């Protein structure tokens, strides 16, 4: 019943890459040019909502431990909250720049959940290493929407946010359930003593 973990990760990696490139394009050409076609403004909130719905599907396939089930449900709710708020901002239902704090909180909570749900050490295997790296990346990346809430005119926040997702995609594409990292694989994971 369970799909391979890598399959789900690579699917999300593809989505994150697209997501990151969309935001990067907006950062490079500027919001005014990017949103000359209205639908482009809806791209990233829609992708976040889609990721939220997909994560519920992943959550129900993650019953092999309570921690995984709860972690995936937290990511699903975080993605939905961020997507909904950004969609409402694009539509004009929400106006305050401080709504970006919802996205910052979503990233922080998601990163924290990533770190807690990974039960292995950094150098146990590649997937464990990447989970730690992804967790800390998300925690640190929460500074970008936080900055956008406090200093909305600076473009650096959007660049940072975009590159976060490109980096996330690279990390998830590199994910394997049990594979070596830096030539090292824990004995516990099947490495040679």
């Amino acid at each position, binding site marked *: 019943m369970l799909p391979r973990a890598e399959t789900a990760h690579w699917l999300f990696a593809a989505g994150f890459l697209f997501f990151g490139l969309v935001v990067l394009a907006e950062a490079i050409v500027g919001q005014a040019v990017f949103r000359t076609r209205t639908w482009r403004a809806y791209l990233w909130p829609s992708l976040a909502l889609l990721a939220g719905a997909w994560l519920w599907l992943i959550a129900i396939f993650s019953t092999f431990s*309570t921690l995984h089930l709860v972690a995936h449900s937290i990511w699903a709710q975080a993605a939905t909250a961020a997507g909904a708020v950004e969609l409402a901002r694009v539509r004009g239902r929400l106006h305050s720049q401080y709504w970006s704090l919802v996205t910052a909180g979503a990233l922080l909570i998601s990163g924290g959940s990533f770190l807690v749900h990974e*039960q292995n050490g950094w150098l146990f295997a590649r997937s464990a290493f990447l989970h730690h790296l992804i967790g800390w990346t998300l925690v640190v990346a929460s500074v970008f929407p936080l900055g956008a809430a406090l200093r909305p005119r600076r473009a650096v926040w959007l660049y940072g946010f975009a590159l976060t997702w490109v980096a996330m995609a690279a990390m998830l594409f590199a994910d394997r359930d049990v594979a070596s990292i830096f030539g090292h694989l824990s004995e516990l994971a099947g490495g040679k003593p």
Partner: protein
Amino acid sequence: MRRGVFAAVILVALVLPVAASAHATLKEVHPGEQDRVDAPPSEVSLRFDQSVEAPPNAIVVLAPDGRTLSGPVSQSRRGTVVRVPVHGAVGGQAYTVRWRVVSADGHVATGVFTFGVDVAAPPPTEAVGASGMTWRDDVARWALFASLALMIGVVGIRLLVLPRAVDPLVERRVYLLGTLGAVLALNAGIAGFVIRSANALQVSGADLLYADLSPFAESTRFGTAFLVTTFGFGLCLTILVVAWALDLPMLRWPAFVLGLVLVWGYPLSGHQATEPNSTVLTELADWVHLVCAMLWVGGVLTLAVVVWPLSGDLRRVAFLRFSRIAVALIALLLAAGTFVSIERLPELDDLWDTSYGRTLLVKIALVLVALAWGGFHHTVVRPRLERGESPPGVGRSLLGESVVALAVLFAAAVLVNGAPPPVDTGPTSAASTPGR
């Protein structure tokens, strides 16, 4: 200086997890979970994705009468496979396997599964040593019912009762309550599933975090209902927030209809589907009972916390419209509830002789209070509103009725989690556990 401290904190935080070791996940068991095997197995083995430490009681194989049939534990050279010999198993019986190993990170991984020798194995909720429902299950079930009253009830009443154009404040609060209901339904569902699994696993605290819940998700009715409703309510949540964010009120219809369909998951995994005398009719009656209850409670809540505090203009029309629909809802609710009660308690004295019957009596008493309250609103408040008057204290009275309605939902939660008395349907029948 401050930057240096910050960098040091980050460095320590990044390095600390390196000290943690690995956590094992169960990959394969033999015999398989809920497998029906032809002959008694000579051993039971578990394969993990990494080496584990197996204490002497790492695997315990239990006969239906609770006897231990397993011998001393042994491990493969790499430590990834743990096995025990099995002595004294015979055909025609189902056996329980409880396992508990320690990962290299010190966390305990644990689980339970069953297999049958020449007989179908029961679900893990009926494993030897599994406990029944506790107050935690009742609270989780009540939270689920209350959140469904928000998600389905409030949104449904908005669509079915309130006029198309309403005050934006009213609209915003309906969205807020509906979305809150969806979020709570998802989390209450997860909590209920985990608590129910913990009863069978007999673990709590940190051990529960690393427990294997997949046998419950994959081979029990309540697990299947949990999987389907969790994904479905996730979709409902997404649709509701899109409807709000894009100001597309028509999208509330698919969320509402999907919610109604998903509620069917509870009759399908409860007494009305698992008891020996269950039929499609009992499942349908249970679904009608649940849906009417959600709409009734949602309607009272909508009047009490949305319409009355926010829109004086809407009070009269909302109250009168809801009064009309409430009569039909209550009639259906009582008819369906009476039918399933008679199916579960065919003898009148079961009402006071069994705990299920006594819980039902408490629920009926609360329903009577709620009906009396609603009857007061229908016969006293409604005519005054029809005459164009503004009777005082209606908002507080509606809040009081809401509290009673939520108490009825709690009694319903206890009832759903309780075990009805066995029903005599012939020599081969046997009562089943709720929500197998």
